[in-house]
C-alpha cells in the first residue's frame, strides 16, 4: 500500500487515545456482563419475583410492562401457561452457566492432555489422535447430540456429555499445535540436553507455555457452549421442560410468534448478550496475552 506524505500529528495522537479507551471498554463491559450473569445465577432465588415453574392460568400471555396491556407484576410478560418470563430468564442463567463451566472444564482438560501428548510425543500417537480429532471436527456434532438424546433421553447430563463430545477437539488441535511448536523450541532441546525427563518437560516446560492460548480458548468457548446448549434445548434434544433454559424458552414461543413475541425475544436476547460478552472478553484477553494474534 502506498504511503501518505503529510502527517497529521494530532490526528494520530487522538486515534491512539481513542484506541486505548475503546480497548478498556471492550474489557469492562463484557466482564461486567459476565459477572452479572454469575451473580444472577447464584442469587436466582432471591432475584426472581416468582418460582420459574409456577403456573398461573389466569395470567396467560401477558405482554411486557412497556407494551400496552402489560403490568409491573410481570415486567417481561408471561407465557402460554402464565409463567413469569423474567423469572424464567433469571433461572435460565443457572443452566447456561453451569453447563458452560462443566463443559469447559471437561473439554479443556481432555483437549490439553491429548494435545500435549500428541504434540510432544509425535509419531504414530500424534497421527492417530489427530485423525480422530479431524473426524470429530468434520462431523456435524448436532447429529451426535440428537443421537445421544434419543438413546439416553434428553436431560442435563446428556447435554453436558453431548457438548463435551463436540467440544474437546478444537482444544486438542490448538494445544497440539502449540506443543508441536514448543517441542521444536530450543529451550526444550536444552532441557533434553540437560537430561530432563519427558514428563518433567511436558509439565514444567510445555504446559506453562500453553496456558495463554488455553485461557483464550476457554473464554472464547463460553459462547460456543451457550449457543450449543440453547440450540439443543430449542430442538428438544437438550434441557427438557419444565426446567427453564433459554433455548427451550425460545422454542416455547416459536408457534406464538405472531401473538406473543416476548416469550422468544427475551431469552434470545440474553443468549446474545452473554455470548457477545464472552467473545469480546476472549478477544481482549487474547490481545493482552498473545500479541502475535492481535492482527486478526
Amino acid at each position, binding site marked *: 500500500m*502506498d*504511503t*501518505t506524505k503529510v*502527517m497529521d500529528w494530532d490526528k494520530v495522537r487522538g486515534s491512539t487515545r481513542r484506541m*486505548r479507551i475503546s480497548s478498556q471498554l471492550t474489557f469492562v463491559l463484557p466482564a461486567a456482563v459476565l459477572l452479572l450473569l454469575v451473580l444472577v445465577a447464584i442469587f436466582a432465588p432471591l432475584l426472581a419475583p416468582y418460582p420459574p415453574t409456577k403456573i398461573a392460568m389466569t395470567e396467560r400471555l401477558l405482554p411486557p410492562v412497556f407494551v400496552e396491556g402489560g403490568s409491573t407484576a410481570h415486567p417481561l410478560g408471561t407465557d402460554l401457561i402464565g409463567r413469569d418470563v423474567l423469572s424464567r430468564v433469571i433461572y435460565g442463567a443457572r443452566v447456561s452457566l453451569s453447563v458452560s463451566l462443566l463443559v469447559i472444564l471437561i473439554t479443556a482438560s481432555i483437549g490439553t492432555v491429548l494435545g500435549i501428548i500428541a504434540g510432544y510425543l509425535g509419531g504414530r500417537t500424534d497421527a492417530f489422535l489427530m485423525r480422530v480429532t479431524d473426524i470429530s471436527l468434520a462431523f456435524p456434532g448436532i447429529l451426535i447430540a440428537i443421537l445421544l438424546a434419543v438413546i439416553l433421553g434428553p436431560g442435563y447430563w446428556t447435554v453436558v456429555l453431548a457438548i463435551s463430545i463436540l467440544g474437546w477437539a478444537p482444544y486438542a488441535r490448538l494445544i497440539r499445535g502449540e506443543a508441536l511448536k514448543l517441542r521444536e523450541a530450543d529451550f526444550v532441546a536444552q532441557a533434553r540436553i540437560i537430561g530432563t525427563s519427558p514428563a518433567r518437560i511436558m509439565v514444567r516446560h510445555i504446559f506453562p507455555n500453553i496456558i495463554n492460548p488455553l485461557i483464550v480458548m476457554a473464554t472464547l468457548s463460553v459462547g460456543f457452549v451457550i449457543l450449543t446448549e440453547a440450540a439443543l434445548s430449542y430442538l428438544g434434544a437438550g434441557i427438557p421442560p419444565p426446567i427453564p433454559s433459554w433455548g427451550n424458552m425460545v422454542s416455547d414461543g416459536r408457534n406464538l410468534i405472531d401473538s406473543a413475541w416476548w416469550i422468544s425475544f427475551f431469552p434470545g436476547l440474553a443468549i446474545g448478550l452473554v455470548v457477545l460478552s464472552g467473545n469480546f472478553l476472549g478477544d481482549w484477553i487474547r490481545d493482552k496475552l498473545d500479541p502475535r494474534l492481535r492482527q486478526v
Partner: protein
Amino acid sequence: MSKIILQVEDLRTFFFTRKGVVKAVDGVSFYVREGETFGIVGESGCGKTVTGLSILRLLPEPAGRIVGGKIIFNGTNLLELSKKEMREYRGRMIAMILQDPMTSLNPVYTIGDQIAESVRLHQGLRDEMVEKEVISALRLLKIPSPEILLEDYPFQLSGGMRQRVVGAIAMSCYPRLLIADEPTTALDATIQAQYIALFKEIQKKTNVAIIYITHDFGVIANMCHRVGVMYAGKILETAMTKELFKAPKHPYTSALINSVPRLDRKDDRLYSIEGQPPSLMNLPPGCRFSPRCSMAQAVCSEQEPPEVEISDGHSVSCWGMK
C-alpha cells in the same frame, strides 16, 4: 563521473504504534550514481531496510509513514507522485531484492509466470516476446537451463536458485536502480560469493545503480564503491569503501570494524563496544551513539552533531571532527 540517479535528502520515516512513535529513519541523506554500488551497513533494527522500502514507498500501512525529506530519482521527487505514477517506477525503473528467498516468491505460481508478469506489465509485449525476455532475464542471472525452469514452482528450487530468480524478476525490465536488501544473508558462504560476483558482472553489463543493504563488512568490502554507516536511524559516516576501512573517522565505525574478527590475521583480543543500541522509540539526546562512545564529550549528549564533509566524498556526523 557518471550522473547521480538517486538523491535522498533528510528522509524521515516514522512508525506510529500503540506504544509510541518509532523513528526508524531519522534524517538520512545520501546519493547513488549510475553504475555505482552504494552500501548501507548497520546492525539489525538500525533502519536500513526501512530506508530501502521508503524509496519505493512501500511501508507497512497504516503504521509506517514518511514524515519528511525528499527522494529525488532522475530529477523527480518520488514523494510527490500519485500512487499510480509511483507504480510506473516500481519494477520498471527501481527494483528491489528482498532478504529471504524462501518466502519472497509466490508459492502457487510458476517461476515463468512470476517473471513474465513484470515483463508483460512494464514492456507491453506479446506472448512470444515475453517468453524470450523472461529467458534472457534468467540467462542474465546465469540460471542453468532456463527453458526447463520456467515450468517449475518455487518450492522445487534451492535457496540460492530462488534468490537468482528473484534477481531475474528484479532485472527483467532493466531498471536504473536496484535496492538489494541483505540478498545473501540467508545463503551459504560459497553461494553468497557466487551471487555477489554475478551482480558485479550484471552491473558492468547494464550500468545499473545498486543500493546494497547489509550488516556484513565483508560483503561491503567486496561489493560496494561507497558506504554509509547507519546507526539508530541515521547515517553517521559516508565514505569510499577503501577509505572507510583504511581511515574510519566516526568512533562507531572504527569500533565496529575493530570488533569484527578478521580471517586474514590472528586477533588476540577483539575490541568490544559496551552496551546495546538504543530503542528507536526513545533515542538518547544529542548524538545517538554518545552513551556507548568511548570518546564522548559533554557536548555529545546535549546537541546532535552536524554532518561535516572532511574530504571529497567523506562526511561524518561527530563532534570529534570539529
